[in-house]
């Protein structure tokens, strides 16, 4: 292992884009990915689409998505928390993202494949993030990037506005590195249980980490400790509803539960607590993540009857089923009387839509909380339940960066040779909220910038 001009820490979208871009400018690059080869690529492994500006129709999306619309979507979704300079860069340069990826060998899936959900604002990776990673790793290797798997980087030392050295460690090596520049692309700390517990208390024990177990947040934490400026809020996380039976880490996309409008959601006491018909946008399952975090024991159950179960999308695990609602309650460990009473009260309150109205206009009458749409009575046995927990995707906590992605210091100024891209700096752009495909776009756009800036710094 030689001392590189540019050290790239991480192995997901941001890291690969940075490594390839730096190498193309002539820098020698070492990419250290903490995961073993078979599990390389962080949360990028699990991703599928990215959000791109395009002023005209393209083969990858169903209509134009102009700059101002992207800008205003971003603004609304994040409650105006975006750094305006970085947000403008993101929106503008997102237009280059798919061409850049295609040029690096990444296959994209055209809408003409006929099997994609209609999407005007995002482009789909053919085969998803893992396929993209395969192409990016192959390209990086071909260009001469040195790639180390199972290589953890830690203990960055910052002094006088410079990154002086870091520790690199894998199964066979442990050594200090002092690259001319480094790019931190190591994601957030959402897989670090201690770290989550420190911010969320016991609630964190009820979380399931949807993505990589290698998002340890080690570098993020070390940088913050040494004076890097924080952005976002460590107590905020992007949570979605996932099956409570999912593995503690890395269950990925298949663990999500999305069909709340088909049934009712009850907590461990067998009581409803939210309008299950209220949100029908594509973000609905994301809204439930936070609600589950607020439930006793961070668990709740989506109750369906046979009709609802038929309407539900395929799931990783079959729901827990029983002939009667009491027996279902017993299997879930909920008080049977309580669940039966909730269901009876709900069923009695449901009202069919007026003749000729939309079938989805079933609603409850005089029920608290109401179910405002799709409130069909649950009467057809067998009954079934999906136990659900909050699934954490990332936290809204990162390091502040400038327009060249240099990490900023709390006391002003920047760390001149340390750059950051991807989730570790994403809270500069979204302090809260989310737009589908935004995370990957942040990785591509700022990964490229960080790689180029790092190479320039190393060369100059």
């Amino acid at each position, binding site marked *: 292992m030689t001392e590189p001009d540019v050290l790239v820490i991480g192995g997901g979208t941001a890291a690969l884009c940075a490594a390839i871009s730096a190498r193309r400018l002539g820098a020698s690059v070492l990419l250290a990915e903490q995961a*073993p080869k*078979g*599990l390389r690529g962080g949360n990028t*492994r*699990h991703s*599928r689409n990215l959000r791109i500006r395009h002023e005209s129709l393209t083969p990858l999306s169903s209509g134009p998505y102009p700059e101002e619309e992207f800008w205003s979507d971003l603004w609304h979704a994040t409650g105006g928390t975006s750094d305006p300079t970085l947000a403008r860069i993101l929106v503008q340069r997102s237009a280059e993202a798919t061409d850049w990826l295609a040029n690096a*060998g990444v*296959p994209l*899936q*055209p809408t003409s*494949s006929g*099997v*994609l959900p209609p999407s005007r604002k995002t482009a*789909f990776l*053919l*085969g*998803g*993030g*893992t*396929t993209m990673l*395969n*192409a990016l790793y*192959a390209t990086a290797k071909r260009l001469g990037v040195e790639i180390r798997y199972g290589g953890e980087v830690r203990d960055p030392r910052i002094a006088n506005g410079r990154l002086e050295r870091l520790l690199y460690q894998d199964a066979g090596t442990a050594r200090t590195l002092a690259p001319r520049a480094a790019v931190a692309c190591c994601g957030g700390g959402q897989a670090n249980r201690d770290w989550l517990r420190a911010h969320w208390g016991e609630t964190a024990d009820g979380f399931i980490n949807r993505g990589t177990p290698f998002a340890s947040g080690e570098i993020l934490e070390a940088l913050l400790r040494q004076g890097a400026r924080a952005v976002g809020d460590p107590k905020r996380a992007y949570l979605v509803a996932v099956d409570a039976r999912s*593995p503690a880490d*890395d269950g*990925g*996309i*298949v663990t999500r539960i999305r069909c709340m409008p088909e049934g009712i959601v009850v907590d461990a006491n067998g009581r409803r607590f939210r309008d299950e018909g209220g949100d029908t946008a594509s973000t609905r399952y994301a809204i439930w993540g936070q609600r589950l975090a607020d439930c006793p024991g961070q668990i709740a159950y989506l109750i369906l009857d046979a009709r609802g179960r038929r309407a539900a*999308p*395929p*799931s*990783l695990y079959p729901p827990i089923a029983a002939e009667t609602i009491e027996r279902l309650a017993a299997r879930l460990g909920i008080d049977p009387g309580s669940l039966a009473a909730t269901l009876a009260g709900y069923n009695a309150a449901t009202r069919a839509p007026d003749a000729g109205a939309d079938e989805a206009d079933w609603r409850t009458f005089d029920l608290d909380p109401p179910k405002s749409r799709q409130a069909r009575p649950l009467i057809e046995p067998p009954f079934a339940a999906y136990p659900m927990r909050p699934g954490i995707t990332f936290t809204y906590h990162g390091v502040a960066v400038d327009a060249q992605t240099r990490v900023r210091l709390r006391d002003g100024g920047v760390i001149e040779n340390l750059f950051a891209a991807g989730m570790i700096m994403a809270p500069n752009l979204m302090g809260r909220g989310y737009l589908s495909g935004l995370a990957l776009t942040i990785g591509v756009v700022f990964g490229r910038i960080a790689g180029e800036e790092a190479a320039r710094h190393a060369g100059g």
Partner: protein
Amino acid sequence: MPVDESLAESRRVLEICNACGYCNGFCDVFESAERRPTLNEADLVHLANLCHACRNCFHGCQYAPPHPFLVNVPRSLARTRYRSYLAHAWPAALSGLLARQALAAPLIALGAIALLVGLVLVLVPPEVLFASQAGAGAFYRILSWEAMVLLGGLPLGWSVLAIGLSLRQYWRLTRTEGAPLSTRAIGAALRDILVLRNLRGGGPGCNDLDDRFSHARRRLHHAMLHGFLLSFAATVTATLYHHLLGWEAPYPLLSAPVLLGTLGGILMSLGAVGLAWMKWRADPEPSAPETRGLDLAFLGLLFLVAVTGLALLVWRETAAMGLLLAIHLGSVLAFFLLLPYSKFVHAGYRAIALLIEAIEHAAVSRQ
């Protein structure tokens, strides 16, 4: 692995696929699986035969080993597909030939060649057999036309019957209730077969050897299939020459049967060698080891037929012609005999699977 275990594993992984859907741009398997959420036996057999084993869905899988979900779609479907070959063999008693192909194919090939060589040694006087023959009817001085037709026709007839019965059984199991067969669907299925659309990986190609994209396997398969069809066309034109025009083989170098056969033989040999090389070099993870014998034996058989045919062409005017003819006819005999009990059967099942997809697509787009 017992039958139901292979089915259970295919069901387990495809349920995960149905909840994910990221691979739906690679080939038709994933959309088809989504239309079949119950994934019963017939569904799984259909999906297994629809799978062209392109491997993109393995290398691109977020759940492939070492992920604890251990999703390996190509391997699971290869197993189910293999089981379906065994289950539909007719008569069932001969399915062992498929299962022990690595032994059966070489033995039968050797046996058939030995039989033919023995026959000509016994029946043909040495001064005829080892003389250099030339001119019309040279082949028939070794073995009469009638004998050749008998030796080829009988086993071929049997094989066509056996394959037909297997396909009928398979079609009854996997066809879609209530969806009508149309000429449009047949046209679409034929196109899919001829261009191998499902071996394009949705555009970039397939992960033939490792996680990089390539079009090599599709091209080699084209060489093989088209070589096979050309050789078949050579036989048909030769038969027409013989019967309609009364011309007797061997035909001149620049005649249609010889040109077609030569090109076909060369393409088949290249295809067989290339495909075998790919099997050798490819990452073994996304394939099922127990199907290797079947695959390689069939490639070996095709290679044998092609190469002995080419050898016969090259040395047909020498003293070696008699024996070369016997060896070539022996390989063809073995090939014909093994048709229903070799990897050849994949062609029919895959064609039906593609036809079913085309029928379902036509039904969907009509709605």
